[in-house]
Structures are given as structure tokens and as C-alpha cells.
């Protein structure tokens, strides 16, 4: 039981979790009925999966190759910040462009907000 076995175990654990999350995100993107549910699956689950895979890659290069690479940490931080922002922008722009939600949707919080914004713009004009 030396250090290499422990490091390999850590790397395999992180990469397995990440690959499972990426596969679940792809299945969700394939099967879900609606744009908003699909964007939800793609942004959250795939972001967590790629962060876990990159942590595994970082530990592999740090513990086995003895090469501390801060660029992977920077990439993880960047993905952590921009993944939710990208998902939010995509969903909001497609709602404004007029994509209808699924017929089983029971609550729509953005609709009164957009009607209020349109009314304010008409008053200003």
C-alpha cells in the first residue's frame, strides 16, 4: 500500500463521479420533453460533472506526475462561474423569444414580470 495506489484511487473516484454526471446530463438532454427542462439538465449536471473530471485530472498530474498545474484550477473556477450564468441567459432569451413551456408546467413566475416590464416601457414611450 504505497502512495501511488492511494493517488490512483482518488483519481478514479473523481473521474467516475464526473463521467456518471456527464452521462446523466446527456440522457436528460435526449429524453426530457421541453427546452427549459433540457437547459436545466445541461447546465447544472454537466457543469458538476466536468468540474469533478477536471479535479481528477488535476490530482493525477499533481500526485503522480509531480506537476502542479494551476491552469486546471483556473478552468474549474471559470466553469463554476460561467455555467449557471450561461444556463440562465439561454433560458431567459428563449422565453423572451417565445418558446412555449411544456404542457405539464404548473407554475410560471416570469410571465407577470415580463408583462410588467412591457407596461412600463409603454408608459415611458
Amino acid at each position, binding site marked *: 500500500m504505497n502512495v501511488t495506489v492511494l493517488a490512483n484511487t482518488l483519481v478514479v473516484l473523481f473521474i467516475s463521479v464526473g463521467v456518471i454526471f456527464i452521462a446523466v446530463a446527456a440522457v436528460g438532454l435526449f429524453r426530457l420533453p421541453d427546452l427549459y427542462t433540457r437547459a436545466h439538465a445541461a447546465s447544472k449536471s454537466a457543469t458538476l460533472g466536468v468540474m469533478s473530471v477536471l479535479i481528477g485530472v488535476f490530482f493525477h498530474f499533481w500526485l503522480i506526475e509531480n506537476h502542479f498545474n494551476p491552469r486546471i484550477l483556473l*478552468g474549474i473556477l*471559470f466553469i463554476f462561474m460561467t455555467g449557471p450564468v450561461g444556463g440562465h441567459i439561454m433560458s431567459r432569451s428563449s422565453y423572451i423569444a417565445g418558446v412555449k413551456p411544456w404542457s405539464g408546467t404548473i407554475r410560471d413566475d416570469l410571465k407577470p414580470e415580463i408583462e410588467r416590464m412591457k407596461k412600463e416601457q409603454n408608459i415611458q414611450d
Partner: protein
Amino acid sequence: MIYFIWGSIVIVMLSMILVIYRLIKGPNPSDRVVALDSIGVSLMALIGMFSIMVDTSFYLDIILLLAILSFIGTVAFSKFIEKGDIIERDSSR
């Protein structure tokens, strides 16, 4: 270890095939933008595992570059879908 990396790469490539199906079939352009963002994310994981497999750390810069380009592409496509142009000229907002 190398077989584990091979298996992970194969699983990620199969999930990318599912995403490419959504990219081709997607009913409206927003679905295609979602699929494109997801392809960029999967490609980052794929490049990370590929650099473990070939045992070099030179490919790791591509991950950061791909993250930035994928985010900029998502924002540009979203603004195009929302307003019809990417850089608006009027300053009334």
C-alpha cells in the same frame, strides 16, 4: 488505470452522440444552443482525460481556452435569439 481512462472516454463519447442527436433534431434554435453548450462542456472533460492517456500536460491549456470560447458563443447566440442582433447600436436601454 489506462483501461479505466479508455472506458471513461468511450462513455463520454457515447453521451456526446446523444447530444449531437439533440443538436441535429432540436425543434427550435434555442435547443441547438443548449446542445452546443453541452458539447463544449463534454469536450473539456474529454480533453482532460485524453491528456492523462497520452501522459502530457501540454493539452491542458486547451481546456481553459475552450471554456472561454464556449461561454462567449453561448452569450452571443442567446443575444441573437433574444433581440435579432448581437451588438445593438441604440443606447436607449
